[in-house]
């Protein structure tokens, strides 16, 4: 049940326990127990909402920043990653293979704020060697969901 349960709530975290039990063909108490275990074990880390901010009047700018760093003795990349992810405006930090080391996703209200963050906070960190900032111009698909307009059901209304 675990994999199916996770795949349902990954798509719809608002689903009620009752409905979840029906869809899985399981007893409510068993599903509840499994959910509690998953939360306790940190497999379920949170219940977020996917928002297309572009459709609101609220300004948001998102940047992907490539960061090259010198790993530190004994701690590898973890220490420097921690220094970066503790900033609340940092949405995500990934350790990446390839031409650079960390990918930082930053969300701010304006370009200027992003520029400030990179020049004042990120670049000045001792182990940061270089950064490359990419601004996101448009999100087509996020977290597996296509944000562009949904297509209509073009099937006939009845068919054998």
């Amino acid at each position, binding site marked *: 049940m675990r994999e199916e349960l996770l795949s349902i709530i990954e798509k719809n975290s608002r689903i009620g326990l009752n409905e979840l039990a029906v*869809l899985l063909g399981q007893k409510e108490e068993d599903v509840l127990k499994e959910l509690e275990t998953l939360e306790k074990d940190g497999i379920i880390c949170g219940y977020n909402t996917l928002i297309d901010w572009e459709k609101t009047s609220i300004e948001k700018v998102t940047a992907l920043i490539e960061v090259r760093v010198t790993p530190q003795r004994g701690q590898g990349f973890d220490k420097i990653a921690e220094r970066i992810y503790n900033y609340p405006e940092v949405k995500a930090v990934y350790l990446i293979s390839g031409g650079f080391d960390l990918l930082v996703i930053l969300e701010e209200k304006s370009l200027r704020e992003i520029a400030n963050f990179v020049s004042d906070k990120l670049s000045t960190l001792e182990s940061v060697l270089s950064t490359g900032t990419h601004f996101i111009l448009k999100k087509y698909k996020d977290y597996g969901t296509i944000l562009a307009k949904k297509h209509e059901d073009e099937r006939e209304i009845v068919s054998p």
Partner: protein
Amino acid sequence: MTKELSNKVINIKPSGIRKFFDLVSEMKDVISLGVGEPDFDTPWHIRDEGIYAFEKGRTFYTSNSGLKDLRFEISNYINRTQNISYNPDSEILVTVGGSEAIDIGIRALVNNGDEVIIPQPSYVSYEPCAILANAKPVIVNLQAKNQFRLTAEELQKAVTPRTKLLILPFPNNPTGSIMEKDDLEKIAEVIIDNDIYVMSDEIYSELTYNGKHVSIASLPKMKERTILINGFSKSYAMTGWRLGYACAPKEIVKQMLKIHQFAIMCAPTTSQYAAVEAIKNGDDDVAQMRQAYNQRRRFLINAFKEMNLPCFEPFGAFYVFPCIKEFGMTSEEFATKLLQEEKVAAIPGSAFGESGEGYLRISYAYSLDNLKSAMIRLNNYVNRLRK
């Protein structure tokens, strides 16, 4: 013109679904539960292969029996799912949907007056195809008490010395019923004893929810008398690509191929290239769709339980078949009123044969949100009728 058209065709009744379609098409904001095709788009990697085939200019006829690669993959697929081995060179024919295979399979087998046993409720084309082939359809009315499975007794009763062919439509449209291995073993005995051919329409074989589908052709002494029909429409959400296939002993395929060759030439080329990709690399897509269907199936069964609407638990295809006899209306009246009052379109069970009277076919090839709104409306309707 004054000369009469074909009497045989004139006398064939138009499909009961067509009547309903005319009614529905005049209405707005209808929530439909009426389609017999997946709501999923064909998985992208399959569509991409179709596009690639166009780009490469693969727009010519293929060989009559279908692309060699595709027949080879079909042979592999049947082997790994059913453990039956069909020779791709002589025992497999790629057709325009399962529907073509049904038509030419019947035509290749029957002579004038031969009897074709058709269990109903079932898909709408078997009976007219049998009639057009000058055969005599013999209907077996399946019973709700057997979960609409075909029993050996029912089959035995329908057999006469003129019986040539049994149509075996499981997993079933419209009931969602399946035949499990022990059900099949029982009827196989009757089939072998009476030396009958079988056309096993397994188009929904990938959509079963309590274990893997078993083909009757995999039972001892059955392959030699069975036309196994399957296709890409339901399993890979490829209805519009029009691609199916038949697997059968080479003597039968040889005759089917003649009809196919003269009437059709070959199945659509682009679709065949896309189908190679589907059958080779589509297992995960099928598994994902199956899981989604299964969740919806459970949702509907639970909704009917809460409404107190009797419905056996179907384990196949994407239909549920609740009983509406308590309301004292025919299926058609019930469905028509449901459409007019609550704007929910479901197909009257009677469209699939007399024994579907008193039932409703509800398709769950719709999103859960869609099904939820529809169940609220159906619940309102049922409550009003019960007052």
